[in-house]
């Protein structure tokens, strides 16, 4: 019999680089500052959580804002246009802020005959689920909201909860076009959860962990370039499959069927306006970012790059500067992913609903299974050889 596969063989010395396993960095920080003795622990904890939520909301809003701005600039330049140029001065950097203010000021409209309660809470559910998923998003090795050994599980689980919000929005709008959009979303997300999860299995087998931080730490070799995509032949096709499935999960073109504007007017968004509409919008961009973070973490080395490797070999590890470098590396990788999504969006036509289903079930799922198989076999071969 062969020895147990790499799934269980975690290199211990590398895991040790991620301190404080199982804890909450924020809570530690608060403890370090040392609040007076008489304040109960639960109040301290609550404050820590509040601070975390605040940081999270800030990050999500910033990401969404600048993804929107980036989308408009990227699409503009791809189409020989300029995109926003006025608001704020330099290349319209404040355009999204101005738009956000406008959306806040807009009249809050609920169509007649709409299911008011569902109509109002649907954007909240959508946004809440993506916030929930982002809790697992680490900012650096030392700074994270929650360290979870099964972080990727939680992200996938909470990330697909947005579907419920979308279906609620579509149903509650009392519009036929919205209903079509909601039904399409339901069908599409169910179809693409499977290849998404299966495609993730390949790097998970390669790395042998479900935790985002561990996955990143495991790729720190080879001058910070021991990325999973290079270490296993199945990971590149698995990434392509994951990426296609991620596009479908985040409702991005060519899979933007739920809101296909030439067919369904605006799908489930038809009746929404103002700030509620912008919640859906924020969710879309946050989800894009989250998918890109997953791809960066499990295929492209996470925090690791030659820069972090150089810092580490110079003895700088931990501390604010190292954390900042980690964060910037990750954000650059994630925004590269977001850019790839945009590039695809502005190149491809939209797929039809039956083709979406065919693609999900008949093409991506079997191919993803094949990838899992190849990944497992090659890992086994590797563990036999080395």
């Amino acid at each position: 019999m062969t020895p147990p596969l790499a799934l269980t063989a975690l290199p211990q010395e590398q895991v040790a680089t991620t301190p404080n396993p199982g804890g909450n960095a924020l809570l530690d920080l608060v403890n370090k500052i040392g609040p007076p003795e008489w304040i109960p622990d639960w109040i301290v904890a609550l404050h820590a959580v509040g601070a975390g939520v605040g940081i999270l909301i800030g990050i999500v809003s910033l990401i969404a804002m600048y993804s929107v701005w980036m989308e408009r600039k990227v699409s503009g330049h791809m189409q020989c246009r300029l995109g926003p140029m006025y608001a704020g001065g330099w290349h319209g950097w404040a355009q999204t802020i101005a738009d956000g203010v406008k959306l806040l000021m807009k009249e809050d409209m609920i169509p007649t005959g709409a299911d008011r309660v569902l109509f109002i809470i649907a954007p909240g559910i959508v946004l809440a689920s993506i916030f929930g998923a982002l809790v697992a998003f680490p900012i650096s090795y030392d700074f994270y909201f929650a360290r979870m050994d099964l972080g990727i599980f939680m992200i996938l689980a909470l990330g697909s909860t947005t579907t419920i919000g979308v279906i609620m929005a579509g149903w509650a709008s009392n519009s036929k076009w919205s209903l079509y959009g909601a039904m399409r979303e339901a069908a599409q997300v169910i179809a693409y959860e499977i290849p998404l999860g299966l495609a993730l299995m390949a790097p998970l087998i390669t790395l042998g962990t479900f935790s985002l931080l561990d996955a990143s730490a495991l790729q720190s070799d080879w001058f910070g370039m021991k990325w999973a995509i290079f270490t296993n032949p199945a990971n590149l096709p698995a990434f392509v499959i994951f990426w296609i499935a991620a596009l479908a999960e985040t409702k991005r073109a060519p899979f933007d069927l739920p809101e296909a504007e030439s067919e369904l007017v605006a799908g489930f968004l038809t009746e929404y306006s103002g700030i509620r509409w912008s919640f859906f919008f924020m969710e879309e961009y946050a989800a894009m970012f989250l998918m890109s973070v997953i791809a960066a973490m499990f295929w492209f080395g996470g925090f690791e790059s030659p820069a972090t490797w150089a810092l580490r070999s110079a003895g700088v590890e931990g501390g604010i500067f190292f954390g900042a470098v980690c964060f910037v590396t990750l954000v650059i990788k994630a925004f590269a992913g977001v850019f790839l999504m945009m590039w695809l969006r502005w190149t491809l036509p939209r797929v039809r609903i039956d083709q979406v289903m065919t693609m999900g079930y008949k093409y991506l799922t079997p191919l993803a299974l094949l990838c899992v198989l190849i990944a497992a076999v090659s890992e086994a071969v590797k563990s036999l050889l080395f």
Partner: protein
Amino acid sequence: MVEQTQEYKPSIQPSEEGRVLPSGEREFFFDVSTSDLEVNMGPQHPATHGVMRVLLRTDGELVTGAQPHLGYLHRGAEKIGENVEWLQYLPYTDRYDYLAAMNNNLGYSLAVEALMPGLEIPRRATLIRTICAELNRIASHLIAFGTYGLDIGAFTPFFYAFREREWIQALFEKICGARLTYSYIRIGGVFNEAPPGWLKEVEHFCDVFEEKWKEYYDLLALNHIFVMRTKDIGVITPEMAYDFGLTGPMLRGSGIDFDLRRDMPYMDYTEIWEAGAYQIPLGSGEKGTLGDCWDRFDVRVKEMIESIKIVRYCLGVIEPGPVLGDVPKVIKVPPGEAYVGIENPRGELGHYSHSDGGKVAVRCRVRGPSFVNLAVLEDLMPGTLLADSVAIIGSTDIVVGETDR
């Protein structure tokens, strides 16, 4: 065509407690019931290319029936034609098919000139007319190309198409001063001489366009998703095309080799054809079935490059000379009736003019190709998916200004 013979059998069986209706049938109570959904596509919908309304009956994503409703843009243009002078009607012809206004001007002018046997059109005027009409055909097909991409969900080709279209519009702006409603080709010739250097600019445009055209083809027409979306959809068989009186790219998309420019020539198209300057692209069924949406789209895209060839030929033979025949200021047309059909970008644009010898027409009929081509929708839509219905409307390439007149 997919036959619609689906019947619904609810999964939950009816309960026994039902009441007997007056008709003798038994009414059952279901927990779940399904029925067809009637959806109004339009009058304001991104895919109807203007204010047209299609009443769809859908069964989930499946379209089981479609009924176009027209008239939202009806302006009584034919009635106006009976109330204004011959030349004064010219600006109104711009507004039928506002994407190909030069061709409309040309059709109307030819129809009136057919009633004026003594009128000589100078050769330079004819060539400028040909250049303008072909450039406008390109501009119109660019819109068809771009908006079809938009219907299918690709945004970027639309902007590339508009980039070249803007160039054509700038050329027209230089020659006649307007960008959309040109009123340039008039009875007896054209309104004024091309400005100096204009023909050189047209040549430059032709050079650049040929390069860009390849990009269009690669970017959209050959894209796998696009091909999958448009092949085997909305198949018009040759018999159907004849029956519905389709003309232009709709007819050629079904593989019927007929083009008014070659087969019923007007102006100097015989000469250009005999010089071998252009071919007539036909639907080939290359990607799917003969006469599907892809074939029609392909015909339009390929026609652009053929138009460039015609323009190049005209640029080669054009010589200085007058551009307006001997036309009085107030045109009086001898009595008679004439029907002239020309090859508009969308099909045969027919103008029927009837004069009783006065300053005003008795009847000014316009046979808009979009109006006729749209009728086929009722037959094509049932049995397709909702997204296909958008693709089919797009592939008919209608201009609502023309269907409603």
